């Protein structure tokens, strides 16, 4: 990558950026210290230091199962969303006209639809298909809301992709699927990985649809967290929140560094 020269950022823009960043990060800054508290209830500033909440989180089967479910659902959902989103991006990239624009909008619509609306719609249709409370149901619903992220990131990666390469590859004897594997995919891999991570994170912290789809035996981490504050007031949520925040932050940082390294 060549170094790009960028116009200097004006001070007021930096100030706004800082204020917004603090606004987003501040809640996290309360949660993480609280997760190391000795107290059995929520307290700030935290009293003492212990790993008791973490111990509870990682030993209590209710929390542990929820974490495991969330990770598996998010993994499968992001794989599915990545395959579908990438295929859609590739197909729409070579199409022009009203129909293609319509299809793109349709695929993006879940990004701007209120979560509760999607959740109700998913719940009603999944009731009929008997997918409520099943693993498959979680994966399908979460994959659907992950597709737009993959579509956007792969589409932007395709912006810098020269379609003549496809013709070159074909002329050299490669059938379309092999061309995708050896030429297209390596060149848009950044977009695919970005989309996959976003799809994973979207599923991992999704709570509204999960609340509708849960069953007594199957629930995800965000649902358990929701329960823990509304039903039982369990301070373990501080530990689980910290875990979620850390996982998501690490994923995004890895993505960021992988990008710079290239």
């Amino acid at each position, binding site marked *: 990558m060549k170094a790009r020269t960028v116009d200097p950022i004006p001070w007021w823009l930096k100030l706004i950026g800082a204020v917004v960043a603090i606004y987003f990060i501040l809640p996290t800054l309360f949660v993480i210290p609280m997760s190391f508290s000795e107290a059995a209830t929520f307290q700030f500033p935290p009293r003492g230091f212990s790993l008791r909440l973490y111990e509870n989180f990682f030993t209590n089967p209710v929390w542990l199962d929820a974490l495991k479910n969330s990770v598996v659902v998010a993994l499968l959902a992001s794989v599915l969303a990545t395959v579908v989103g990438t295929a859609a991006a590739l197909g729409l990239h070579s199409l022009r006209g009203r129909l293609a624009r319509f299809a793109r909008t349709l695929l993006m619509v879940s990004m701007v639809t209120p979560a509760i609306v999607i959740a109700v719609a998913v719940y009603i249709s999944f009731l009929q298909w008997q997918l409520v409370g099943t693993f498959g149901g979680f994966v399908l619903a979460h994959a659907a809301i992950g597709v737009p992220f993959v579509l956007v990131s792969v589409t932007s990666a395709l912006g810098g992709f020269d379609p003549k390469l496809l*013709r070159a590859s074909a*002329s050299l004897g490669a059938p379309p699927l092999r061309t995708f594997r050896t030429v297209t995919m390596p060149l848009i891999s950044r977009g695919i990985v970005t989309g996959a991570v976003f799809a994973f994170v979207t599923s991992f912290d999704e709570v509204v649809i999960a609340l509708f789809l849960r069953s007594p035996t199957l629930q995800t981490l965000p649902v358990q967290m929701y329960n823990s504050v509304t039903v039982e007031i369990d301070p373990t949520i501080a530990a689980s929140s910290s875990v979620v925040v850390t996982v998501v932050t690490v994923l995004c940082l890895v993505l960021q560094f992988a990008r710079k390294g290239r």
Partner: protein
Amino acid sequence: MATNGTLHGGQTGTQIRLTGVSKDYGLATPAVDDVSLTIEPGEFMTLLGPSGSGKTTTLNLIAGFETLTGGTIAFDGKDVGTLPPHKRNLGMLFQNYALFPHMTVAQNVAYPLRERRLAKADITRKVAEVLELVQLTGRDDHHPAQLSGGQQQRVALARAIVFGPSALLLDEPLGALDRNLRATLQAEIHRIHSEVGTTFVFVTHDQEEAMNLSDRIALFNNGRIEQLGTPEELYQNPRTLFTARFLGDSNVFSPLAIGDGKVTWENNVWSASTSFADAALVVRPEDVRLGSPPPDSNSVNATVRAVEYMGAYRTALLSFGSSGVLGRARLDAADTSLAPGQQVTAWWPVAQQRLVLSKEPS
């Protein structure tokens, strides 16, 4: 140069026969309209024409990137109309090189060989051989972005010929290069054509390139072949005004009143014979002289508008007759006798004039 017959020699290329080929996108006029053309094995055929004339579409039809809406294409007599591009065994060169940016030079060149599942040792040997042929030895591990435009096009050329394609299709491969490089690469393409000996189909809008490189030129206009022939035939004997204007400079006298053994332009009566009812008279600038006309020549009054110094020669910009049609005459580089505004008589040997069809066929 190390040769062992895998890249060159013994190879004559494929005959490409187009019969009544059409491509219609549903626009007002078809992009390619009933084109028939036989490209002989080992021939260097240029598809020449202005943009939108159908030359690139024709090339894409040969490559299989576009589907025919009419006619047939056959390689060595075998119909390839339904064959997908990756099964046609054609090398292709693009204007923007189309090298794979995530692969090194060696990986790019090896790509078609890996696709054909050659043994690793054979791939290494052939890659080295072809890189030597295009004079890029030692750049194996560079990435395309580290090479100049000319070098990138050499890599693309190496990649397109390394697997011994039936034919090489070149889609304005020199268009993105500057003037000097273009001349060098033009010579390179010429040399490689004679060394590799396969069929070359070259698309360009540059008449100079076409004249320098081609065995034959198919001149395209409005989706049809306007004229087909060797560069000499097209230059010396253009059949239509379009051909006369597209290849080289022409002084055009039109409309003409056609008589028996004579034509009249304005009030000049010239000896000429033509079978066309609708003809224009064309004279190349290098055939126009100034001064008193000898016998067996035709002449016209002209006014000098300007004299341009071109280095090897001078060009007099003239306006002919009473209507002041602009034209050119070529002068010696040392000739400084003319001044703008001067009245002269322009003449040319009757044998050097051409009568061409003046209406463009619609």
